[in-house]
């Protein structure tokens, strides 16, 4: 565990993998598995509270402890990023530089044929 960001990431990974909402204790057990020097309870609790404040985790009271769950699945976050790339039209190119660009079906068929012809030419 190098930095704070890595710890946040490890906690999110643990929460995403679990089937049900987790307590801080459960997350800590999960993180400390196979680790010689374990993380302190307070460290894990603090970082999970920060993640809650940042909107990554939501929590509900369960007895005396909170149970945390991810507000969105990993796939939903990934999809939202790709949506951003998708939506980056002409005015957003300075933020992201996309490789893909749209082609209509005719163009795809045309360049595919040209590519195949070049490949044949190179092989023979």
């Amino acid at each position, binding site marked *: 565990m190098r930095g704070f960001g890595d710890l946040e990431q490890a906690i999110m990974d643990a929460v995403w993998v679990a089937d049900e909402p987790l307590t801080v204790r459960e997350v800590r057990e999960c993180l400390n598995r196979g680790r010689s020097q374990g993380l302190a309870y307070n460290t894990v609790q603090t970082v999970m509270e920060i993640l809650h404040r940042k909107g990554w985790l939501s929590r509900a009271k369960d007895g005396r402890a909170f149970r945390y769950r991810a507000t969105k699945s990993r796939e939903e976050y990934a999809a939202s990023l790709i949506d951003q790339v998708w939506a980056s*039209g002409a*005015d957003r190119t300075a933020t992201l530089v*996309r*490789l893909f660009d749209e082609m209509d079906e005719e163009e*795809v068929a045309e360049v595919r044929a040209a590519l195949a012809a070049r490949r044949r030419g190179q092989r023979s």
Partner: protein
Amino acid sequence: MRVALLLLGYAALVATAAPPLARAAWVVRAPRLAICVWQALSVTVVVSAVLAGLALIVPTVPVSGSLAALLQACALMLRERYATPGGAVVAASGISLALVLLGRVGWCLAAGLLRARGARSRHAAVLAMVGRTHVDPGVTVLDDDRPVAYCLPGHGHRIVLTSAALAVLEPEELDAVIAHERAHIRQRHHLILVGAEALERAFPRVPLFAVAAEQTRRLVEMAADDAAIARTGPLSLAAALVELAGSVAPAASLAASGGHAAGRVRRLLAGHRPLGRAAAWGGALVAGALLAFPLVLAAQPAVAATGMNSCPLREAPRSRSVSPECPAAFRGCLVCSPPSPKAHRYSG
């Protein structure tokens, strides 16, 4: 007035004559040179307009006086060479023109940089949490069923590929894609785009800036393509482009932005014919000349005035009538000071 009109005329000429350059055949053979030429064209138009505004304030007494002191030239000569009818009104509109232009460009540039940086860091924060690392350094993989490759440039830059993109690309195609994105990052294309788009946003009525931004977007892709094919050959990159673009249903919102992908594949398949060295140097010289010309135009009368040892005598009667302000404003003029050998020039 003559200087200001010449500068404005030059700016208008460049702004109207340049856009057809987009259809020139050589630009696809030397995309990086073409980017420089578009930048030179855009900058020279802005600089000429700003200098035209500044030229209008030279005839005012404080400006011509301090400029004369600076250049050790004759203030009267300067006033005559940059003379404008209309005096203070014209000078005021000149300085406002210069300030408005500079302010608008600076504002749009700063806003564009900040906006892009903010959007990038928000994107990077989520990416760091949900992305998986790839064997290639600097590459992050996102699980998504849309085949997409893009890069997040700037500080802490990342190349991002979706799991679907990894699935459709052959190994050498993947190398080509990563080389293409690395070229974007290495050649700082995001900064080039920020500049072009800032001018486009600052002056939406000037077609040159819209054409320059559109062309820059197209040319940075070609420049990155050229860097990639130097590593992997054109066929791998062409195939990767077809895989990534071909499996994507064109989104309605993007249809208007005009895809360049098909043109890029055709260019890759046609074989790369870089521009000859002589032609490339010629282009670079033209770009330099474009930038230098407004400076020469604006400074030439002042330089000519510096070369004079004394003010022309025909100015004498007129200047005598304004003699009370002479010590401050017309320092260095023969007609204002007692004729001594040292009085030809202002010293100190």
